[in-house]
């Protein structure tokens, strides 16, 4: 249930951040730090693997959106990967599925980032 965060660089300007468990008002500051660390470290593209996320609240959504803005300012992008149906539902209810590029796999997202 606790939040797990795993980060992996894929080339110079791409980072894969895999989250697991619950992203809520308590744990989301750690997601923010992980994203900022990559963005500040030169990764313009963030691939957020959500496949193991069970809970995502507004503080988590806010951090994803803020990360998206920051990465786009640098000519990059934030890709969301493989959210569970429940999380997809939350993204749709908030309209954020239109704001983010949501992809099926990490490899697909990394390939997209490399093509850009």
């Amino acid at each position, binding site marked *: *249930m606790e939040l797990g965060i795993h980060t992996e660089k894929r080339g110079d300007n791409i980072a894969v951040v895999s989250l697991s468990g619950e992203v809520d008002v308590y744990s989301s500051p750690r997601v923010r730090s992980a994203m900022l660390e990559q963005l500040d470290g030169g990764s313009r593209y963030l691939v957020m693997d959500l496949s193991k996320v069970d809970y995502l609240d507004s503080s988590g959504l806010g951090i994803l959106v803020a990360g998206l803005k920051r990465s786009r300012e640098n000519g990059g992008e934030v890709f969301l990967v493989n959210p569970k149906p429940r999380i997809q539902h939350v993204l749709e209810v908030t309209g954020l599925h239109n704001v983010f590029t949501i992809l099926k796999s990490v490899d697909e997202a990394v390939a997209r980032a490399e093509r850009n």
Partner: protein
Amino acid sequence: MSLNDAPVMELRVPALAEYVSVVRLAVLGLCGRLPLSYNEVEDLRLAVGEACASSVQRAEKAGRAASRITVTGELEEGRIVLTICDDVPIPPEAGPSGSLDIDPDFDDESFRISLMQLLVDEVGIGEAAGGGQVVRLVKNCEQGRDAAG
């Protein structure tokens, strides 16, 4: 049944981010008493988490580490009613809070309120007797309507 006379759940925890999950889990247990679908339960859990997060964030801003959140749950015919009440004074103007600080324009309190409205059937927000905030969330059981009720 005498259960309708008083809430079937009263829960009080500190208004700190790390206790919101205690509330969410207790609400999960309470949802087990009604024929709610998985998505209905998760919608309500997310909404109650948002209401608690609002309390937590105001308590933080007000520097009131000893604040408490009180959650009550009532089971009515085919619906569940939760109130989330705190003792944190509501700031006179509740404009953009900028707590995310990467994006200071974003008003996460209004985002939270819209999210709650999207997730449950009724959202009421008011001032508690003691000066804090009360959020009232109602979720109807769609299953309950079709089936046993």
